[in-house]
C-alpha cells in the first residue's frame, strides 16, 4: 500500500469574482521513503496542493470540494480536526517558502522546535531541548547549543531554512512537504540547503514532495516529477525519463527556461509566452492551448486526459492531444523535441545529476539511522 494516495483532489477558493479552481482534479500517489517533485509556474496550484494535503487551506475562502487523500490508510479529508492536528507535524511536516516570515519573530529557536516535540512525542521540556540541540546539529547549525535561545532574526536566511528543516524532521514524520524551500535563498545557499534536505530525508527514510518552479532543482532531488499547469497534472514521469524524453510542450517550455549559472549566456532566457490562464474561467479545452505553439483545432475543443504516451516508459503520462495516438491527435509523437529546445548543455548536466541520484538511492541501505533517531513503528 502506498503511503499517500491522492485521488481527484479539487480545492477551490470562493472569491467575490467567482470560484477559483486552484487545484482541479489532481491524483497521484507516493510510496514510503519516495521522493516526488511537483513543478510548475507560479499560480498553477502546487502550493495549494501541498496545503490541501495537511488541510491547511484557509477556510473561508478556500475549500477542498472533492476527492480523497489517503495517508497511511486513512482519509485525511474525513478526519475530525483533532485527528488532523495529530498528523500535522507528527506524520506530515511542511517546510515553507520564506524562512524570513515563517518563523515566529518573538519566540526562541528552541521553543519553536521543542513545541512539536512536547506535543507529539510527549517529551518534557529538558528532553525536548536536548533533542532540539541534536536536530540543529543534524542540519548543520554551528555551536547549536549556544544558539538555542537565539531568536530568528539572529539567524541568516539559510540558517533559518535549516531551522525549518530541523523543525520538519523533529517528530520523524513519514512525509515532508517542501514548498519552494530554497526560492527565497540566494543561489549559493540553495544548493547547501537542498543537500541537507536530501541527505536527512534519506537518513530518516522520510518521503518528501518537493514543490518548485525550477525544473533544474528537482533534477538532483527526486525520483519522480509531476508537472502541474492550471490546477492539473499535465505530465508525470520518472525524473530521468522526464529529462530524457519530455513530451508535453509546456514541459519543453519549462526546460527551455532553466537559467544557467555555469556559463556566460549568449542568449536571453527563453520565457513561455503569455500568462497562465485565469482559474475562474479557464479555457474550454487544453488549459495550455492558448499559449502553445503546437496547438491544433482539437486542443481548443476538448481537454485531453492524462494517459500514458507512446515512445516512452510505461508510467510516463501526458495530458496533450499531440502526444496521444487518438483520432485527430498524435502530431507531436515523432517530433524531435531536442531540436525544439535548442541549447542542450544544461540538459546534459541535469541528466548527469539525475543519474547520480539513482546511484545514491541504490547505495542507501535501510537500517542505518543517524545517532539519536529512534525509528517509529510502522516505517
Amino acid at each position, binding site marked *: 500500500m502506498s503511503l499517500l494516495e491522492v485521488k481527484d483532489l479539487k480545492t477551490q477558493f470562493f472569491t467575490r469574482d467567482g470560484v477559483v479552481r486552484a487545484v482541479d482534479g489532481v491524483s497521484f500517489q507516493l510510496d514510503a521513503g519516495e521522493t516526488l517533485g511537483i513543478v510548475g509556474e507560479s499560480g498553477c496550484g502546487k502550493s495549494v496542493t501541498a496545503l490541501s494535503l495537511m488541510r491547511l487551506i484557509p477556510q473561508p475562502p478556500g475549500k477542498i470540494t472533492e476527492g480523497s487523500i489517503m495517508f497511511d490508510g486513512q482519509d485525511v479529508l474525513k478526519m475530525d480536526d483533532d485527528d488532523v492536528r495529530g*498528523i500535522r*507535524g507528527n506524520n506530515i*511536516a511542511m517546510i515553507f517558502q520564506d524562512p524570513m516570515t*515563517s518563523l515566529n*519573530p518573538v519566540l526562541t529557536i528552541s521553543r519553536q522546535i521543542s513545541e512539536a516535540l512536547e506535543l507529539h512525542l510527549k517529551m518534557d521540556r529538558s528532553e525536548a531541548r536536548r533533542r532540539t540541540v541534536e536536530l540543529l546539529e543534524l542540519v548543520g547549525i554551528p555551536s547549536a547549543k549556544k544558539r538555542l535561545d537565539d531568536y530568528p*532574526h539572529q539567524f541568516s536566511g539559510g540558517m533559518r531554512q535549516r531551522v525549518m528543516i530541523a523543525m520538519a524532521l523533529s517528530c520523524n514524520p513519514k512525509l515532508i512537504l517542501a514548498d519552494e524551500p530554497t526560492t527565497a535563498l540566494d543561489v549559493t545557499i540553495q544548493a547547501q540547503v537542498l543537500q541537507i534536505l536530501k541527505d536527512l530525508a534519506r537518513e530518516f527514510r522520510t518521503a518528501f514532495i518537493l514543490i518548485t518552479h525550477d525544473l533544474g532543482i528537482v533534477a538532483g532531488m527526486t525520483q519522480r516529477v509531476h508537472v502541474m499547469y492550471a490546477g492539473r497534472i499535465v505530465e508525470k514521469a520518472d525524473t530521468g525519463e522526464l529529462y530524457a524524453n519530455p513530451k508535453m510542450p509546456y514541459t519543453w517550455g519549462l526546460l527551455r527556461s532553466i537559467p544557467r549559472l555555469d556559463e556566460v549566456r549568449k542568449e536571453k532566457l527563453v520565457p513561455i509566452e503569455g500568462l497562465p490562464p485565469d482559474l475562474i474561467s479557464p479555457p474550454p479545452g487544453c488549459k495550455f492551448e492558448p499559449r502553445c505553439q503546437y496547438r491544433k483545432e482539437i486542443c481548443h475543443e476538448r481537454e485531453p486526459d492524462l494517459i500514458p504516451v507512446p515512445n516512452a516508459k510505461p508510467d510516463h503520462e501526458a495530458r496533450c492531444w499531440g502526444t496521444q495516438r487518438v483520432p485527430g491527435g498524435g502530431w507531436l509523437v515523432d517530433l524531435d523535441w531536442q531540436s525544439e529546445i535548442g541549447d542542450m548543455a544544461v540538459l546534459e548536466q541535469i541528466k548527469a545529476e539525475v543519474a547520480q541520484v539513482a546511484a545514491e538511492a541504490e547505495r542507501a541501505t535501510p537500517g542505518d539511522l543517524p545517532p539519536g533517531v529512534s525509528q517509529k513503528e510502522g516505517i
Partner: protein
Amino acid sequence: MLTYVVRRVLLLFPTLFVVAVIVFALAHAAPGSPFDPNPDRPLPPQTVERLNRYYGVDRPLYEQFAMYMGNLVRLDLGRSLVQDRTVAQIIGQQFPVSAQLGLQALFLALAIALPLGVISALRQNSAIDHGGILLATLGTTVPSFVVAIFAIYLFGLNLGLVPLVGWGTPKHMILPTAILALGATAFLTRITRASMLEAIRQDYVRTARSKGLSEQTIVVWHVLRNAMIPVATIIGPATAALVTGSFIIEWFFAIPGIGREFVLSINRRDYPLIMGVYLLYALIIAVANLVVDIVYGLIDPRIRVSK
C-alpha cells in the same frame, strides 16, 4: 540596558529645555497679558504698570526667559500671576486628581478593549465583532461632551444613581471615569483588533498550524505576543493623554483636575502656570515613551537594545 535607560533619562533635559523655549515663545506670542483691563473690575493704568514691573512682564522676553530658567534650575516653578498659590502648589493639589481619573480610565479601557479586540478578531463578523466595531465607531465619533451631557441627564438627573457633579467619593468617579475611558476604549479596541487580524494571517501562524498545535495554543503563544507590539506602542501616549487631564470632562463634572486648570491658565495668560503645566506634560509624555520603549524591547526581541 541600564546604560540605555540612563542615556534616555539624560536626554530628557535637552528635550525639556526645547519644550520650555517653544512654550515660552508661544505663550508670549499670544496677544494680551495677565493684567489686561477687565471691564468688570477696571484697574487704574498706574496699577497695571506697577503690576507689570513687579512681575517683570514689561522686560524683554529673553530676560524673562533667563529669569524663568534660572528659577527652574532651582526647582522653583514660580507663582501663579492670577491665583494666590505657587505653581508647585497648584500642580501638587490638582495633578493627582487628574492622574487618578486618567489611570482609572486607562485600566477600564484596557480591561474592555484588549479582550474585546482579541475576540472580535478571532470571531470576525460575529455578533461580538459587530458590537466591538459599533463601540469603536461610537467612541471615536461621538464627542465626550455629548456623552457627558447624556450621561449626566440619564444617570444623574433621571435615575439619580450618581451625583451630578463633583469629586471625592467613588460614586462621583463612576461617570467621569467611564466617559473618559470611552474614547480610549474605542481607540484601543480598534488597534487590538487590527493588529490581531494582521498577526493571525502571518506565515509563522501557518507554520504553527502545520506543527499540529491547537488553535488555543497558537493564539496564546504565537499570535497574542506579536499582536501586542503595536498595542504597546499606543498605550504609552494614551496613558500620557489620559493622566494629563481632560478639560471637557473636568469642566462638565466640576473636577478640580489639572486639565481644566491648564486651559484656564492659557486664557488668563498665567505664564508661570502655563510653563509649569506644559513642562509637566512634556515630562509625562517623555517618561511614558521611555517606558514603552523598554516594554517594547521585552515583547519584541528584534529591537532589544542589548543583552
